[in-house]
């Protein structure tokens, strides 16, 4: 009796629904395989011996486990220089970006800010029309004297207008009463921003920090344009590019001993910091991704 009752309470899945569930499950399993397998393959190869890689015996797990590839990477001076520079560019770049984006988004989020609409247009227009690579290069290199300096990379894309608009939307979602209360208590705009507004948009800010950090860490093109004359300033991605993109004959001795291993190890080592960072800020991320409307 009880069993029968339980049965009737349960929602009966129709045949069509079950087929759909099956199909979606298969798609998701396929997705996990397609995305996961190359990642696993690269990681496994980085721990395998050079002979095993070259004779194509690495299928899923490391073959003839070795740390030789990583030893090559860690013995490579340019790697450490690149790592140091990348860390510097990421920390400073993110700080500059967040500072500028907050300073722009907060005033523009105020509906009664006189002149806000015009200033918003100045920002928004750059998403519609870009001057392009060459005039930007001339202004930065010739007129601002940034060629061969860290500033060229740090200020390459310090304000992402789309990100700024996301932040503005987040500021706008704060109830106006809070700002009124702060104003009555005598807080000025800076105090209101730091003590009231910013803590309330923490989720969005951490999302934007993530975007910006990933962008800074992975950037190579501006470094290639502006820093090619100065090897001591090059970020890790540029070191990687020079090593990975160059024909196999960078260093004949490495080809014999384990260029392949070193490449796989470099791929892993340069990607891990970003992934770790992602998993650290991930818990804020779900709340922050209200990219919702970008309408100006």
């Amino acid at each position, binding site marked *: 009796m009880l069993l029968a009752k339980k049965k009737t309470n349960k929602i009966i899945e129709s045949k069509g*629904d079950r087929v*759909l*569930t099956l199909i*979606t*499950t298969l*798609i*998701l*399993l396929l*997705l*996990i395989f*397609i*995305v*996961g397998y*190359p*990642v696993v393959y*690269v990681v496994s*190869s980085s721990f395998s011996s050079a002979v095993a890689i*070259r004779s*194509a015996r690495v*299928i899923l797990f490391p073959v003839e486990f070795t740390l030789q590839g990583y030893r090559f990477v860690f013995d490579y001076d340019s790697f450490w220089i690149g790592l140091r520079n990348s860390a510097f560019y990421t920390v400073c770049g993110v700080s500059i970006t967040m*500072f*500028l984006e907050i*300073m722009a988004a*907060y*005033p523009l989020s*105020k509906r009664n800010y*006189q002149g806000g609409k015009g200033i918003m247009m*100045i*920002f928004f227009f750059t998403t*519609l*029309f*870009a001057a*392009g*690579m*060459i*005039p930007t*290069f*001339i*202004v*930065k290199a*010739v007129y601002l004297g940034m060629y061969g300096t860290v500033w060229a990379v740090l200020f390459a894309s*310090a304000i992402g207008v789309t990100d700024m608009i996301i932040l503005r939307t987040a500021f706008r979602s704060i109830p106006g009463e809070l700002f009124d209360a702060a104003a009555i208590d005598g807080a000025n*705009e800076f105090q209101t*921003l730091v003590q009231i507004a910013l803590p309330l948009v923490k989720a969005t800010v951490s999302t934007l920090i993530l975007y910006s950090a990933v962008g800074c860490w*992975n950037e*190579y093109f501006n470094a290639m*344009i502006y820093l090619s004359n100065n090897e001591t300033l090059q970020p890790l991605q540029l070191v*990687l*590019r020079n090593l*990975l993109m160059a024909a196999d004959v960078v260093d004949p001795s490495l080809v014999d001993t384990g260029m392949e291993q070193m*490449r*796989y190890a470099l*791929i892993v080592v340069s*990607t891990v910091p*970003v992934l770790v960072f*992602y998993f650290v800020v991930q818990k804020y991320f779900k709340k922050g*991704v*209200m990219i*919702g*409307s970008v309408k100006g």
Partner: protein
Amino acid sequence: MANQSVVASDTLLKRNPVQRFLITFKKNWQLHLMIVLPLVYMLLFHYWPMYGLQIAFRDYSSADGITGSPWVGLAFFEKFFANNNWSRYVWNTFRISMYSLAASFPVPVILALTLHVNENKALKKIAQNVSYIPHFISTVVMVSILKQVLSPMTGFYGVLCKWLEVSPIDLFGTAEAFDHLYVWSGVWQNMGWNAIIYISALSAVSPDLHEAARIDGASRWKRVLYVDIPAILPTICIMLIMRMGHVLSVGYEKIYLMQNDLNLQVSEVISTFVFREGLSKSNFSFGAAVGLMNSVINTCMVFLVNWITNKLSDGEAGLF
């Protein structure tokens, strides 16, 4: 009464523009102060280069500067169209971009719907988190992984061919393979991440709608068609506008890394051409002219697509 006093103060302010300016400035000066630095940044790094775009019509030399170099009119535009290959660069840009759009736009939508329909929480979580990983891989690393894995000698591709007993070809040296490699590696890298926006749009759908549809006897598949898809249609439109507007701007960062002498015929796009001819060879005015043309077309595309969307949706779905 209150209304009258507002009108009165308004007319008073209108009579004294200086006073009016002072009052609003006094009210807003802290906000003005905040926005000064971002504004300076925009002027220096975006608007100054726009002003510098005039070198497209001048013969720029660094000695004379932007405003001191002699005017040459449309000489550099003519130079571009005198190049026998100009139509090929435009076609490459357009083709790669359209292919990329056609392949990479629907996949995240399908993925989001799949994740939404499936009710196995553990599987969903794993699938979602795994699909995000490639997004964090840099362009340099992405291209290196492609090269490593597809290497006919040592890569996974080579292994597979050996296993299937066919002789592997050098995919990176094959012009026909370039488009597919570029587009599908992009899909691989970004499908999970780009699905996020649709997933959040789907999770905002009111459960009442599903409940009502279920009572009316709609199967899960019908509910996908008539509840879920209409719910995310505005998001799809906005994303499509944003993508369509950039149909003539392919990211040069990845293409540049994937280029080699063997595939340059199909892989040289306008932006890499600007970089190669304009920047690397210091033909600044020529590069600026080609870049300007590209930018203008892009801007027109954005407005055109936005206008069409507004027309079709009665001003609802457009970006601005």
